[in-house]
């Protein structure tokens, strides 16, 4: 047992965890607006990173310009996904719509392979490569950036939901689409907005994680699944649950990989997922689903 490494594991867990939290939030936004599980969420992550790479490397844009542009592009792609296949779908059955997002995910992955090839891509770390030593843990400046930006996004989201009219309208649509329509809220616009926001959230996650781990056309799948597991761990559809679930998942995964076996790193996340489904299926912070007859 290498207990002195604990701070290091926690730091890396929280870092990955905040990225999972962002991805989980993307799932959560779409779940609340439409009741769908968006399997293309992981591919938003990949796209965000890859577009940023292209803008930065091929077009030579400065990082502070390339990143927001990449986020906006993926937000638009997210909106197009909703405006296009999901809205055109003649069958409103949830399973069919979820399968449409699976199709979209494969398409996006295929497009990623065509555009960026199969190789690994990198982005430079935001704050250089010199680690800062605190309490025996080496912290990369990138880690601080990830934490800072995640906190910023979370606060912005909180303010958006709590204090803006659009945010409230979105919650209204999530709660009762029919009632929201009756008082003049455009459900379609809110759903499109949710897809755009979730695309932006995914892109941000991708851009933040790439300097640490790199990115390739198919890496979105596992990241998306981890975010999904985080969302369930916290309580599917709950915003604070998604954040805490993502963070917790990152930490548990880092501890499992560090203390038990790094070979099974990816398995821990899903073991935690199975355990929570068996023990407390509503998630740690989700409300028990009310049964309506």
């Amino acid at each position, binding site marked *: 047992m290498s207990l002195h490494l604990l701070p290091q594991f926690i730091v890396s867990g929280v870092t990955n965890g905040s990225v999972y939290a962002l991805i989980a939030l993307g799932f959560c936004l779409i779940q609340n607006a439409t009741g769908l*599980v968006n399997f293309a969420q992981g591919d938003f992550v990949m796209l965000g990173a890859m577009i940023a790479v292209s803008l930065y490397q091929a077009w030579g844009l400065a990082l502070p310009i390339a990143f927001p542009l990449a986020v906006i592009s993926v937000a638009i792609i997210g909106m197009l996904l909703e405006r296009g*296949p999901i809205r*055109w*779908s*003649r*069958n409103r*059955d949830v*399973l*069919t719509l979820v*399968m*449409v997002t*699976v*199709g*979209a*995910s*494969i*398409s*996006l*992955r*295929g*497009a990623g*392979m*065509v555009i960026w090839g199969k190789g690994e891509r990198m982005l430079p770390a935001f704050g250089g490569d010199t680690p800062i030593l605190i309490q025996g843990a080496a912290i990369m400046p990138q880690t601080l950036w990830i934490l800072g930006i995640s906190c910023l996004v979370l606060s912005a989201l909180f303010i958006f939901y709590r204090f803006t009219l659009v945010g409230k309208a979105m919650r209204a649509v999530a709660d009762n689409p029919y009632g929201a329509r009756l008082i003049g809220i455009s459900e379609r616009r809110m759903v499109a907005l949710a897809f755009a926001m979730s695309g932006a959230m995914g892109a941000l996650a991708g851009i933040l994680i790439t300097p640490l781990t790199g990115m390739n056309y198919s890496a979105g*799948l596992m990241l998306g*699944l981890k975010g*999904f*597991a985080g969302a*369930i761990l916290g309580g599917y559809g709950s915003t604070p649950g998604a954040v805490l679930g993502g963070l917790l998942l990152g930490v548990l995964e880092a501890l499992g990989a560090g203390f038990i076996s790094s*070979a*099974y790193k*990816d*398995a821990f996340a*899903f*073991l935690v*997922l*199975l355990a929570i*489904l*068996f023990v407390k*299926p509503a998630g740690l912070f989700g409300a028990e*689903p009310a*049964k*309506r*007859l």
Partner: protein
Amino acid sequence: MNAQRPDPLPHQGPAPGPSPGEAPAPNPPPRLRPQPRHALAVLALILLALPYALGNDYLLLLFNIIALNALVVLGLNLLIGCAGQISLGHAAFYGLGAYLGAIAGSTWGWPLPAALLFALMLTGLIGWLLAVPTLRLEGHYLVMATLGFNIIVTIVINQLEPFTGGPSGLAGIAPLQAGGFLIDSDRRFYFFIWGLFLVLFAATLNLTDSRVGRALQAIHDNELAAGAMGVACHRYKVRVFVLSTLYAALAGFCYAHYVSFISPKTFDIFYSVQVVTMVVIGGMGNLWGGLVGAALITALPELLHRFEDLHVLIYGLILTGALVFVPRGLVPSGLALLRRLRDAAAATPATDAADAPGVAAAWAPPAIEPAPAAALPDSLGSPGTVLEPLLTIHNLSKHFGGLQAIHQVSMTVASGEMVALIGPNGAGKTTLLNIISGLIEPSAGRLRFRGTRLEGLRPHAIAALGIGRTFQAVQHFRHLNVLGNLLLGYHTRGRAGFLGCAWRSPAARREARRIAAQARAELRRVGLEGTAEHSVDQLSLVQQKVLEIARTLALEPALLLLDEPVAGLNPRESEQLMEWIGQLRAAGLGIVLVEHDMNMVMRYADRVVVLQHGAKIADGPPRLIQRDPKVIAAYLGTGAPGEVPLEP
């Protein structure tokens, strides 16, 4: 819940219906029903001829993979299409079958049958362990659990190198053999695997068209109502899930012994998604569709190979396009198109008799023959004289959080007694029915039905005890026709299980014939004989309500819970329906009637129980209730003069 709004019955036929028994049964509308036996024979012939027509053994390899996938899809289709449950982990079960079989057979040197049994049993056990806790919950927990499970299995296969060979795979798996006959070439495997597939396909087709298949379909359509019909929903869902994992494991076992080399890549989450895609593309719940889907999706990457890097993108786009534009699946949509073309060709003005809406004719109450239920006790005395109570409720309470929905209610219902449960909206009437029928657990109190305690029993067990119920909004099973809906009522009277239904054992066949004859007789008796093959949506509201009650009566209940049976009906229909219900009561059934129509309540009920804010405020014969000041206050507010409230 799917609101079935009362429509004002647009089709009013001539006054009294045709006397039962005389009217010739109209021909069912023309349908393009695939004749399973003929279609199967054709399929078998084509498959038999194929290898001789092809000549190319590479294509045989493709067809062999199609058969393996089709086998996995067959089980998955049963799960998704019939039971409405989704699994994103079938690659894991496919992989478990392959690896367990290969390790037992080749590494440990077990004989093939033992290895097969080992692989099937262990996979089934794991599937069962996964399904029992997750299927107890509503919602899509099974998807998440299977998805997580799939990823874990892939990682474990990758890591357990001593057993599985890790990422580089397991090689040198011996080919299958049957009685000394080695299945070691593409051609031999082709005949073996397609033969196996056809047998299982036929058995699964049998299964879907049987008591078990009907129950599974009912669970998919309307789990609530299925439980009320005595279908043990959880048990069925678990069983069908385990069955589908066994199909996958069998396919995996055959795969491993066919290709002789397996690696974890084959069994990752992508394959799980692929098989679900095959089901959805072909048509959920349509086994032929699953076969078509498996063939198309398996062949598609082969066809797209020459596009090289573009093939993933094209595959994704085709998949998305098919889902968006042919969402019901290729086979059902194709059949619908054929049917439309045929109808268009045959649409001569003279042959429009079987036009759909024409079904909704007038309905006359059936004549009640002696007693509809064998379980009736000998309490056919004058109604209202309480002999021994059938149902006793003692100090029942239910609260949802801080809301007291039912507060210390006590009441009894005797055989041959109709107790009306009335009260303003939100008084807790439906909640009380839900507690009796087991949909809601009471917070406190006792419920006894002929001495048996009902607390803690699941809805299907309560239904099997002899408590039938109908719902406020008529609950039917959309994918079953009128006869199928009624047949479901006989579920508890059948015994045939998965195996009996799949292999059409003589006992299962006898039972199916007996129950079908009973159901047809019942349909005739309640005046719906002409509609047996129609979809329930084509019935008028009153016919739907009659069907729902007839279905519930098929349970042979001793107690019938009716939740607003006449709501939405016009006065004449209400009268007819209540007349019929009155006859059922006279035949000895105990009835609890929740109803807002005070005229009906006062005319038919033997006793009236009044609820307000979850508490019982009055209990007595209708005459006294009408004059009870507390009741009048509850309906009209305090201080109103003693006029009978007609409508709450």
